[in-house]
């Protein structure tokens, strides 16, 4: 019913959207894989990051791409502090408490943003969103292409960090065997906080890449949370490669589902995949077998 060119373009669109999803999911999967917590504050933190991008542009004249580095660092510190001084101490190592604490944080952040910025939907000024790259018959949004590329680079860097660096080894050690790691002199609290910080830094990067083509309001992050969870599950909780591939797969599924079934029911596809993966292969595509 649709010409192959349209379907192909939908797939490319899906890949580009999926790359952005993957970035959001990267932070989530890392935090889940290491801390074994479902971070409910993820969406609100993404919203925070998006407001930060907006503020950088409007207040300091720093464009979204130039903001990647400073905001990445800033959100790493923010995430570190949140885990080290709020989530860690107040959850007493109980999953259900972590759940409530992250939920509490999301309520606080979301409404603090609401109080500070009102509920208006805002966008970055300028017509950066209209830049296109012509590829045959396809008109591809330049900011989204850039986003796609940066997402791949970030995923690769993260993978390298985990696989090669000392910090990465420590993170993996803590993820696998908390007490064992402690015995060899790793402070799990520090590592947890570092992990959470990296997760938040991923969000900051995602925000920088999303904003040129998206909008921001105090609730916008929620739109990405459920889909990010789906990706994390699909890719296997804790797997960086899984999050990347999962993000791309979900992006394409959503895109084709939207094209063929309509945007609303297309969402159904995502959740059905989610449920089926959980029921049939709960470790995901790339997760270690439990």
């Amino acid at each position, binding site marked *: 019913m649709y010409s192959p060119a349209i379907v192909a373009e939908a797939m490319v669109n899906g890949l580009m959207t999926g790359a952005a999803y993957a970035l959001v999911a990267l932070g989530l999967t890392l935090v889940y894989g290491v801390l074994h917590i479902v971070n409910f504050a993820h969406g609100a933190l993404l919203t925070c990051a998006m407001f930060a991008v907006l503020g950088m542009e409007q207040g300091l004249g720093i464009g979204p791409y130039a903001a990647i580095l400073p905001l990445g660092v800033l959100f790493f510190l923010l995430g570190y502090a949140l885990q080290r001084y709020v989530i860690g*101490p107040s959850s007493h190592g109980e999953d259900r408490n972590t759940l409530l604490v992250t939920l509490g944080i999301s309520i*606080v952040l979301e409404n603090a943003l609401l*109080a500070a910025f009102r509920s208006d939907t805002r966008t970055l000024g300028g017509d950066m969103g209209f830049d296109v790259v012509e590829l045959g018959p396809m008109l591809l949004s330049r900011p989204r292409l850039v986003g796609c590329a940066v997402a791949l680079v970030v995923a690769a860097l993260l993978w390298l960090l985990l696989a090669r660096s000392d910090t990465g080894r420590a993170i993996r050690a803590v993820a696998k065997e908390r007490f064992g790691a402690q015995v060899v002199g790793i402070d799990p609290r520090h590592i947890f906080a570092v992990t959470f910080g990296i997760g938040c830094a991923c969000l900051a990067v995602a925000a920088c890449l999303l904003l040129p083509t998206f909008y921001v309001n*105090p609730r916008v992050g929620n739109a990405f949370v*459920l889909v990010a969870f789906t990706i994390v599950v699909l890719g296997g909780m804790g797997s960086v490669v899984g999050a990347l591939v999962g993000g791309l797969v979900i992006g394409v599924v959503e895109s084709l589902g939207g094209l063929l079934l309509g945007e609303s029911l297309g969402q159904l596809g995502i959740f059905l995949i989610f449920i089926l993966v959980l029921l049939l292969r*709960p470790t995901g595509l790339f997760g270690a077998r439990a």
Partner: protein
Amino acid sequence: MKPRDLLPLLLLLGALALTPLFASNLLLNFLVSALIIALGAQGWNLLGGYGGQLSFGHAALFGTGAYATAILQVKFGLNAWLAFACGIALAALAGWIIGYLSFRARLRGSYFALVTLAFAEVLRILANAADFTGGAAGLLIKLQPGLANFQFASRAGYLWAVLACILVVGLMTLWIDRGRFGAQLVAVRENEDAARALGVDVLATKLRAITLSGAITGAAGCLYAQNFLYLDASIAYGTWISVELLIAAIVGGLGTVLGPVIGALALHGLGEVTKGLLGWLTGIDLVLFGIILIAAVAFVPSGLVGALRRLRMRGAAR
């Protein structure tokens, strides 16, 4: 059951039942809203508190109860009381189906939490798109106060209806707490393998728990529909309801008979207080609410009922 075990429950519910004698409608309305959540949280608590299966998707059960009651009345002209009973039954069925699928697949912990969340979302999208649920326009139950229609002219009627349900569920929870099923359920929560070795049918135990949980939370959904007389997909199946139920149960004290009731009242009360204090700047009241929630978890990790128990023990020790 010893009378001593019953006392706190009866005292609390008795006191609440007497509020219409002196309280304003504002307070009664507040109580009805909070207690509907309390009832739903009792359902959540049976599965999450006693059974250790933390669901993020109890909206699936709440919404099924609510929609069933509404649809049966509006589209099929069923009597409201019958619709109430059917709503409970269908919510229990929904619980059993979700449980059967996920527990058969051996989903636990975060995995179970996420799959329930997804089930609730699927139902929300379907209810929003389907015709017989009224689609996005939702369903309006006709305002016809009268006992036969399960609608009350005064708020007290709703209050007593909810309290009656809470009492029944409270007694049932107490009975479970003191019996074989409760012991096995708690054993499953604490250690599935050990429970299995002791002859506990883990799957059946979990299924019983989620089915009962569905019936209870579904009843809360039915009462919600009868009270507000309007439903749409994001009210019935929205994430907010799952979150409210689990917060109420956890804050109140997991695996305790009174926890969900105390938790729901405390949280709703807190919400009203912060709103009253700081309502002038939109959003700030919820910021305070969030901070208090975090502080509560930090300083009262075992829930309010646990804290009360400790206080009483300290008092007794003196």
